[in-house]
């Protein structure tokens, strides 16, 4: 951390987006995390993505649990709505907020401790209910905030800073999200913004439960030899299956690709995801294959990254519940309290 506020001066030629904001307008308070923490890079990627998508900051809600990762919403989107919930409870608070006001863009920020231990159940249910959100786990394999105990995502056999091996099987949150029906699943790395920023953009524009497992080295407790969540390990074992470009409207393809090299996916809202294949056989529209590939590569010690799966036509929780298009918090009293007659009618229909 630093004690100084970041100077307000910005680059004189810093571009502005369609709303007239610079990227700096999407920043928050100065971070109090350890210098070099991967989480700060993810914050920077979120800022960049929201800027590029021209999102009005006051139409975004950021929610989190407890942990260094869950502290980060303070450090980005200073003009957005925020809710710092209790440990592992971000998903239910987010679900409730989403039900009350479906018009906001929901960003859930969590850690591997927050989501894979105390909040595992909440994580699972929010995904399987298809809450329309981006759920991002800043995954460092440890409980950073409480001084570096192994978390449930730490790989079996990986070493703690003091050299002790982890004996438990890891939880792979990306595989779980696939299994639970998430309609957008990606994995990325805090040290690779070229990959991460487009993934965040695509996920923010995705309808349904979008999940990103972002490996984010903890420089204080988990960036040593023997760790499988260190900068060096992830860089050496990074198996990126594709590269993504996100276009709000379809743009002409300028670079030449060999047949089969390029996949285009159009999401529900018209956003075009243009995927350049790095692995010729990988198809991000095949959930079963994605799950198999993750298993196979993790057995080899490889970290699969990229857009792992997308279902562009997914439905969300509101579709399932057939809620009205108007956000519940915008309905007037007459609509919300229709009176005794309406109640009688409803009761009668249930008899």
């Amino acid at each position, binding site marked *: 951390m*630093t004690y100084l506020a970041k100077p307000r001066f*910005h680059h004189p030629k810093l571009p502005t987006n369609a709303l007239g904001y610079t990227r700096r307008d999407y920043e928050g308070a100065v971070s109090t995390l350890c210098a*070099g923490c991967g989480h700060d890079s993810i914050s920077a990627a979120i800022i960049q993505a929201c800027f590029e998508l021209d999102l009005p900051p006051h139409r975004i809600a950021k929610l989190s649990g407890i942990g260094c990762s869950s502290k980060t919403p303070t450090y980005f989107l200073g003009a957005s709505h925020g809710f710092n919930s209790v440990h592992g409870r971000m998903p239910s608070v987010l679900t409730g907020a989403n039900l009350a006001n479906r018009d906001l863009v929901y960003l859930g920020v969590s850690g591997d401790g927050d989501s894979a231990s105390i909040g595992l159940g909440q994580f699972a249910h929010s995904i399987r209910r298809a809450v329309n959100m981006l759920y991002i786990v800043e995954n460092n394999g440890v409980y950073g905030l409480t001084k570096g105990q192994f978390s449930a995502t730490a790989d079996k056999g990986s070493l703690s800073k003091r050299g002790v091996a982890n004996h438990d099987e890891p939880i792979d949150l990306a595989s779980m999200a696939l299994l639970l029906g998430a309609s957008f699943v990606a994995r990325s790395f*805090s040290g690779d913004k070229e990959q991460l920023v487009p993934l965040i953009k695509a996920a923010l524009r995705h309808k349904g439960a979008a999940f990103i497992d972002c490996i984010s080295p903890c420089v204080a407790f988990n960036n040593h030899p023997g760790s499988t969540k260190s900068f060096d390990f992830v860089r050496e074992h990074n198996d990126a299956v594709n590269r993504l470009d996100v276009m709000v409207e379809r743009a002409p393809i300028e670079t030449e690709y060999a047949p089969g090299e390029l996949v285009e996916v159009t999401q529900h809202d018209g956003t075009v995801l243009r995927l350049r294949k790095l692995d010729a056989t990988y198809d991000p529209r095949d959930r079963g294959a994605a799950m198999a590939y993750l298993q196979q590569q993790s057995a080899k010690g490889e970290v699969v990254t990229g857009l792992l799966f997308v279902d562009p036509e997914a439905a969300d929780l509101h579709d399932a519940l057939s809620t009205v298009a108007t956000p519940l918090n915008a309905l007037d009293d007459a609509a919300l309290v229709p009176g005794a007659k309406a109640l009688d009618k409803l009761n009668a229909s249930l008899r």
Partner: protein
Amino acid sequence: MDGRGPGGVGGVPPTDIRNPDYFHKVVDCQWACPAHTPVPEYIRLIAAGRYSDAYMVNWKSNVFPGILGRTCDRPCEPACRRGRVEDEPVAICRLKRVAADNKDDIRHRLPAIPAVKNGKRVALVGAGPAALTVARDLMPLGYHCTVFDRDQRAGGMIRSQIPRFRLPEEVIDEEVGYITGMGVELRLGQEVRSLQAILDEGFDAVFVGTGAPRGKDLDLPGRREAAANIHVGIDWLSSVSFGHVERIGRRVIVLGGGNTAMDCCRSARRLGGDEVKVVVRSGYDEMKASPWEKEDATHEGIPILNFMVPKEFLHEGGRLTGMLFERVRAEYDERGRRSLVPTGEPDERIDCDDVLVAVGQENAFPWIERETGVEFDRWGLPKLDPVTFQATNPRVFFGGDSAFGPKNIIWAVAHGHEAAISIDRFCRGEDVAERPPPGVETSSQKMGIHEWSYDNDISADLRFRVPWAEPEKTLRSISVEVELGFDARTAFAEAQRCLNCDVQTVFTAQLCIECDACADICPVDCITFTANGPEAELRGRLNAPSVNLTQALYLSEDLKTGRVMVKDEDVCLHCGLCAERCPTGAWDMQKFLLEMTHAGHACRSH
């Protein structure tokens, strides 16, 4: 890696930060200062209230801090990085004055003059800033210096031309006195009429610092008939400075758009000219005077009339009555060259009692005989080695306005330092072409995890204005100083605007783990981690538009991922946040103090 591959093809080589020019250029103000004054170093001393120390840093580099703090042409300010970050540069010049005005007695800090001389005698022709700088550098080395000037008092145009309301006489006396007080032999009131005679006196070397002493005249109809009320600007100004002229007519026309014109009109305004007008051939923006000089004149109610070409002096019965001007407009050809073409409107008549002609200065060397071996070019300027200032007679050196035509005080000082080095080497029989390298010191500013020995919290203040004395008071006297100087509190706040560009960001590639923390925190997006490539293409891929090609890119060696760290120096705030955020200490903030080596110091070739 964008298919470019690690290292890139035809990539930029890593920056050699051991070359002193690299970091020197980052200190924009110091690089732009002809004498390379360590500006941020003295600004920090002013902020710390250490005025005497700040003064001495200046004195060493530019010899006349009190004078320059009021009159310098300040090439440092347009160069100042702050001007690229927000609206206006740091008020560098006026901070210098703060050091001069608030210092203690510094006489004991001046260099000691050896009682036993080295036996070498140097003649200095002219007692202007160039020659005085030569004396200042040579006296401490044991030279016997003899200064000749036709004026009765030393100082050159600093004393004869710059009006007192901009520069009080006490300030000139004090700073000229520091040098003459070193035991310089003064032969004042003595015009030199023959270089040969000086050479014949057996001096080991001669320095010519006679300036550009001739004011240009305007040979128009009526010039001779109305001569009594037409004055050449610089001659008139020196008569004012030396008290020979105390009044001028009520209606005055000043011809010309340079500094001299501005001093003429403001002086005339104080000597009875109630209606003073400046008339300029060209447009307002092309005028040679500095923007602040034009503002000062306007502030004193002096109109500036542009695009009017003088045609004729009007007179009646041998008395000047007015002037006739032709109206013109600017036209540009395909190559962008300007010509002034008549608009066809009728000529304009302006009535007046006096005219001051301030249309330029010329060099004149009627006293330098061809036989001395000193050659001149077709513009009448001496043929000189551009680095050593040595003339075609190796015993003769030039500097200041006499060397390359009229410039300003700080250039005269810079020339003087260089000429002194040449003279010293020449007198010792050393190769004059060999120049001593600058002295360079680097020191880490780190004191703790987030603690630095400089103030890295960037001030958001805008430039402070220097207060002025009441115009009712200043316009009534030729010698009441207009500017009052910053008070201590404002000086501190203005000093805090300095970005400390000499505190350099120093990168160690081996320590970097490529976590991006520095790139993320940098408020002005200086830092990018990317594949190397040819410079023009690389600049196009940086995190922020890299359009200022005069500013360097700092490149690291290849990092672990095969990428490089690229820092665009252009708008770095030197806030140190990159270094505070770096988990491994790959960034460090190091103060880079560069001081020019003057005559006789260190680094002798033998």
